[in-house]
């Protein structure tokens, strides 16, 4: 289990594409740059979607782990351009 602690948690488990990134987007919009967003998902598409989404928005995936069927991402929010 990760030692990283999050500022905001998005539990998108069981949700299917595109809802995990939509939930992450809504959360990230309300966060300050540099905060940590934790996203949990079970949709295997999230493995490629969350990193692509983060990169496109200037966020950074700082840690990623798989716990059972849960895909867990820790994302440091970037500065909006």
């Amino acid at each position, binding site marked *: 289990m990760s030692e990283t602690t999050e500022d905001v948690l998005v539990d998108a488990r*069981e*949700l*299917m*594409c*595109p*809802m995990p*990134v*939509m939930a*992450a*987007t*809504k959360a990230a919009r309300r966060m300050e740059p540099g905060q940590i967003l934790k996203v949990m998902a079970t949709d295997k598409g999230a493995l490629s979607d969350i990193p*692509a*989404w983060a990169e*496109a*928005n*200037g966020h950074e995936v700082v840690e990623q782990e798989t716990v059972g069927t849960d895909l867990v991402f820790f994302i440091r929010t970037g500065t909006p*351009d």
Partner: protein
Amino acid sequence: MTAEPVTTDQSALTEDDVRRIVKEELGTALRKDTGMRTGAIVASKGTLDWAYPPLILANAAAAVGMQVSVFFTFYGLNIVHKEFERKLKVDPVGNPAMPMPVPMPDLVTAMPGMVSVASRMMKKKFADKKVSSIGELIETAREMDVRLIACQMTVDVFGYEQSDFLDGVEFGGAAAFMAEARKSNLTLFV
């Protein structure tokens, strides 16, 4: 008056520093490029299965930071009609790709009532798999400020009124859509 020339200690900058700086600056400039940040999608089909792709793609485009417009035209108007739940159906006839619980001859799938059976089956299958409903996708799209534009010409041809459509739907013509689309690197016809 001229600005003081900026002097930097050239020896302090390594090649790697320069590469990193150029990469960062390019990344920032590209993210600000209007073409990369704008998307235009045409939704022309009015069945339950074809209602999904334009809405999913519009939402995903908004999630990666794009301003998206979806132009609903011809049968695609069904998607933003107030009665979309009733109007969006799927028909097994002429759709050999549609999976059936048991193999069925075409004559059976053409029987009266099969369209609503197939539509219910598809909605249930999607709900079981936790795929969002069309209503949820439309609601999320609105939260993401996706512009939903109904084609005025086809609204008139089909005898609809503007009040027949969901709140927040805009009305426009092909030229208005093209004026948006020409600024977008992403244009999709569904």
